[in-house]
C-alpha cells in the first residue's frame, strides 16, 4: 500500500523531502505534523535520516563492513540494516523505523561517523515512529488503539504492521507464538496461526447432509443445518501460504553433472538387467570381515564386485574401451580403472580404483577406504577423479532394485547394483530356500557394444559372484 502511494506522488515527493529537511528532527517529535501529511490528498511517506547512534567507549567512527539491505528494500523496525566494525568490535545496526530504504550514505569499507546519517528511510505517514532513544526495550505505540499486550509479565514484541494484521483478524497476540528475535511476533507467525485456525474449523461436510432424514426424533437435525450454514464461511477465508519460489544459478557439483550428463546424451544407451544370488558371497564376506578389520580395513561387498568386473573385462575388453569423437577408432584401455559412484554432501562424485587387474580384493578394499574418507572430507585429488574406464554404482546401499544408469563419457559401460534382499527361490532339488538376491542393471554404448557381449559379460560376472571360489581359478 505504501509503495502504491509513493508511485502516485513521485513528482511531488521531491518537494516534500525538501520540506522535511527544513524541519529536521522536530518534524518527527510532534504528531500533529504527521497528521498534516496524512490529511493531504496525495499523502507520501516522509523521508527520515536515520543517524548512526553512539557505539560506546567514546568511539566516533566505524567502518561499514556489510549492508543487509539495499535501496528500495522494505524494512521493519528492529530489522538488521548493516554491520560496522570498530577496533575489534563488530556492531549490528538495526532499524528504528518501518519503511522503505531510500538512500545508503556509505559504501562498503567507507568510514561512517557517529551522529551522521547512515540511511534515509521513507516512513509510511500513518505508522508510528520510535522515540529517539536507540536502545528501546518496548515497541512504540501505534496510532490505533492497540497497546502492547502483556502475557505473564512479558511484553509481546510486534511491529505496528503485525499488530494491525492481528487486529484485523481478531487474533490475540498473546495466543500467537513468536519466532522472531527476542520472541518477537512476525507476520509469518500471524499467518501460520490463521492457517491453523481455518484448518480446524472445516468439518467433513458430506456426512452432515446425509444425517437429517434418519434422525427425526432427536434435535440433531438442527446441528447439521448449522454446520451446513457454517461450511461456506471457513472455505472463503484464504488459507495463507507464504512460500516463495527460489531460483539459484547452477554451479559446482550440479554444473559438473549437467556437463557430464549432457555429453552422455550423445551415447545411444541400451540396458541389460539380471538378478544375482549372493548367498555364498554373503557368507564369504562374513568370514573375511574380521580378518580385514584386524588389518585395519573395512570390507564391504564392493571390492568383490569390482574384482569380478575386472576379471570379466579381461574376457570382454571392449567394455573397457573408448570411442573417439568421430566414432572412427576404438581404443582398448589396458588398465582397468574402475570408477565407484559416491554420494557426498555436495553431490555425486566418481573416483576410480586404478589398475584393478593387478590388485587383490584386499588391495581394492584398502583403496576404497582411502577414497571414501577423502570423498567425505571433500579432499579427492584430480588423479583420483580422472582416468576411469568402467564404472559401478552401488545405489543399493541407499535402496532400489533395478535402475537405468547413465554412462559416463568417455567410457562405454556402467553397472548399477540394487539392494540385497532375502527372497524365496527354488534350489536344484525344487525346494524353496532363502536366497540373498541382488539386481544389476547394465547400460552400454550400442555403437560398439552389442547385447550379446553385454549379456555374456554379465553372465561371467554373475558366475564369479554366485560362486566366489571360481574367482580363485582366474585370479592373476
Amino acid at each position, binding site marked *: 500500500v505504501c509503495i502504491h502511494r509513493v508511485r502516485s506522488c513521485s513528482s511531488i515527493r521531491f518537494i516534500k523531502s525538501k520540506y522535511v529537511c527544513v524541519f529536521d528532527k522536530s518534524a518527527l517529535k510532534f504528531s500533529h505534523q504527521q497528521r498534516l501529511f496524512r490529511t493531504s490528498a496525495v499523502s507520501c511517506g516522509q523521508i527520515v535520516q536515520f543517524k548512526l547512534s553512539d557505539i560506546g567507549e567514546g568511539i566516533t567512527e566505524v567502518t561499514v*563492513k556489510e549492508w543487509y539491505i539495499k535501496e528500495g528494500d522494505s524494512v521493519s523496525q528492529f530489522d538488521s540494516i548493516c554491520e560496522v566494525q570498530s577496533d575489534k*568490535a563488530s556492531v549490528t545496526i538495526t532499524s528504528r523505523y518501518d519503511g522503505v530504504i531510500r538512500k545508503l550514505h556509505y559504501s562498503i569499507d567507507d568510514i561512517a561517523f557517529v551522529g551522521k546519517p547512515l540511511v534515509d528511510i521513507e516512513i509510511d505517514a500513518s505508522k508510528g515512529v520510535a522515540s529517539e532513544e536507540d536502545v528501546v526495550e518496548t515497541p512504540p505505540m501505534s496510532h490505533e488503539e492497540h497497546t502492547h499486550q502483556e502475557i505473564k509479565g512479558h511484553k509481546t514484541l510486534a511491529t505496528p504492521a503485525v499488530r494491525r494484521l492481528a487486529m484485523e483478524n481478531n487474533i490475540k497476540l498473546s495466543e500467537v507464538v513468536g519466532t522472531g528475535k527476542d520472541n518477537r511476533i512476525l507476520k509469518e507467525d500471524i499467518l501460520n496461526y490463521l492457517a491453523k485456525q481455518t484448518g480446524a474449523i472445516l468439518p467433513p461436510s458430506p456426512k452432515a447432509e446425509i444425517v437429517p432424514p434418519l434422525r427425526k426424533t432427536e434435535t440433531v437435525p438442527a446441528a447439521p443445518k448449522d454446520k451446513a450454514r457454517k461450511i461456506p464461511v471457513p472455505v472463503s477465508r484464504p488459507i495463507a501460504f507464504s512460500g516463495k519460489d527460489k531460483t539459484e544459478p547452477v554451479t559446482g557439483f550440479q554444473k559438473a553433472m549437467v556437463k557430464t550428463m549432457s555429453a552422455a546424451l550423445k551415447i545411444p544407451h541400451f540396458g541389460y538387467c539380471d538378478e544375482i544370488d549372493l548367498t555364498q558371497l554373503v557368507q564369504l564376506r562374513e568370514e573375511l570381515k574380521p580378518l580385514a578389520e584386524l588389518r585395519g580395513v573395512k570390507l564391504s561387498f564392493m571390492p568383490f564386485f569390482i574384482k569380478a568386473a575386472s576379471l570379466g573385462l579381461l574376457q570382454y575388453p571392449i567394455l573397457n574401451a573408448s570411442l573417439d569423437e568421430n566414432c572412427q577408432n576404438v581404443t582398448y584401455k589396458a588398465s582397468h580403472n574402475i570408477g565407484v559412484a559416491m554420494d557426498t554432501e555436495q553431490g555425486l562424485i566418481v573416483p576410480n580404483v586404478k589398475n584393478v587387474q593387478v590388485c587383490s580384493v584386499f588391495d581394492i578394499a584398502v583403496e576404497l577406504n582411502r577414497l571414501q574418507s577423502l570423498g567425505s572430507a571433500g579432499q579427492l585429488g584430480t588423479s583420483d577423479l*580422472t582416468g576411469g574406464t568402467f564404472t559401478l554404482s552401488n545405489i543399493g546401499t541407499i535402496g532400489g532394485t533395478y535402475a537405468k544408469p547413465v554412462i559416463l563419457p*568417455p567410457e562405454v559401460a556402467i553397472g548399477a547394483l540394487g539392494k540385497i534382499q532375502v527372497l524365496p527361490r527354488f534350489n536344484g532339488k525344487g525346494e524353496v530356500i532363502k536366497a540373498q538376491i541382488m539386481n544389476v542393471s547394465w547400460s552400454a554404448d550400442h555403437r560398439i557394444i552389442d547385447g550379446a557381449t553385454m549379456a555374456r559379460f554379465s553372465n561371467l560376472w554373475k558366475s564369479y559372484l554366485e560362486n566366489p571360489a571360481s574367482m580363485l581359478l582366474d585370479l592373476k
Partner: protein
Amino acid sequence: MVLQSFKNCLWLSCVLRTPKAFFWSTASGGLIIQSVSNDVYQNLAVEDWIHDHMDLEKQQVLFLWRNSPAVVIGRHQNPWQECNLRLLRQKNIKLARRRSGGGTVYHDLGNINLTFFTTRKKYERMENLKLIVKALKALRPQLDVHVTDRYDILLDRQYKISGTAAKLGRTSAYHHCTLLCSADKLVLSSVLKSPYKGLKSNATPSVPASVKNLFEEDPSLTSEMLLDAIAKEYATQHQIDHHINLINPADETLLPGISNKTKELQTWEWVYGKTPKFSINTCLNVAYKDSVLDVKVNMDVKHGRIEVCNIDLPEQWLPPGLYSELIKSLTGSKFCPNETTTLVTTLLRVCPQDDELHSRWSLLCENMIMLM
C-alpha cells in the same frame, strides 16, 4: 571443588522448567556457565543464543569454553589471508568464523575462552580484562601480566597471552577473549601463516604477535585452575555464588533453536562466503617437460565465489575451446579446491582423449587448485 556435577545440573533444569528460568539464579547480578562441549561451532552457537535470547538487564553472564583444535577468524576477515587452509585440511583442524570482529586465533584445549555478556549500555572491555588480570595475580602474584590499550593481555611486557573481540547488537553485547595456558605453539604458528600470495583485500588483517603460554611461566598452572580463578573473581565482583553451571550446547530443550545456529555456523556460505571481496594476482610456475611456464592468473572472488577469472597461457597450449570451457566453469563456482577439482575433472571427460592434453590439463588445474 566448585564445578557442579551433571546430576545436580539436570535437577536444576527439571525444577525450573522454562529455559529462561534456568538461567535465573537465586542471587541476581551474575551467572557463570561453562560448556561441556569442545566443538567450536557448538560453543559459538551458545554465544549467539545468549546474545539473541537472554535478557541481560537483570543479570550479566560469564561463559567459559574450550575447543578442540580450531582456527577462528573474525567476522570480516579473509581465511586465505589469515591461515594455511591446506594445512588445516590435512590436519583436520576446523575453521570457524565468529560473529565478533577482530583478528584470527588458534584454539586448542590449552587455550581458554571467556565471554562476558552484558546489556549494550554496560559494555565495557577494559573492566573485563582487568578482572582477568586481577584473577591471575590473585592466583600467582608473581605473574607480570597487564592490559594494553589494544585490549591485549601481555606477559612479561612482551608476549601476548590474550586477544579480544566484541559483538554489539541492539540491546545486548558481548566481549570475548582467549587466554593461552598450554596451547601447542608449533601448530599455532604453522597454521596462522598464510602461504597464499598475491591476495589483495580490504578484509580486516590480523596483527601477528609473539605468544607465550602461562604454563611456560609457571608449570604448575592448568586450564582448570585459570577458569576457576577467573570465575571466583567474577563471582566476587558481581556478588554472586562462586558456582559454575554446566551447559550442553546440544540441548535443544534448554536452548531452543541452538541446533540451527550451530548448523548455520558450519555452512560454507558463512565460513567462506562471508569473506569480503578480494582479488588474486599471482604467477603459477608450471613445470612441464624440462621447462617452467610462467602462467599469470588473476581472479576476483566475491562471497567466496569466483566472479572473474583470467589465466594467461601461451597460445595453443590448450585448445581454445577447452580453455574457454575452463573459464566458463570456474566463473561463478566456489573458490574451493573440492568444487574446482570436480569441475575440471568433469571437463576432461568431454574433451579429446589425448594423453598429452590430459597431462597439461591436470598440471594446470593442480596448480590452480593450490591457490585455494
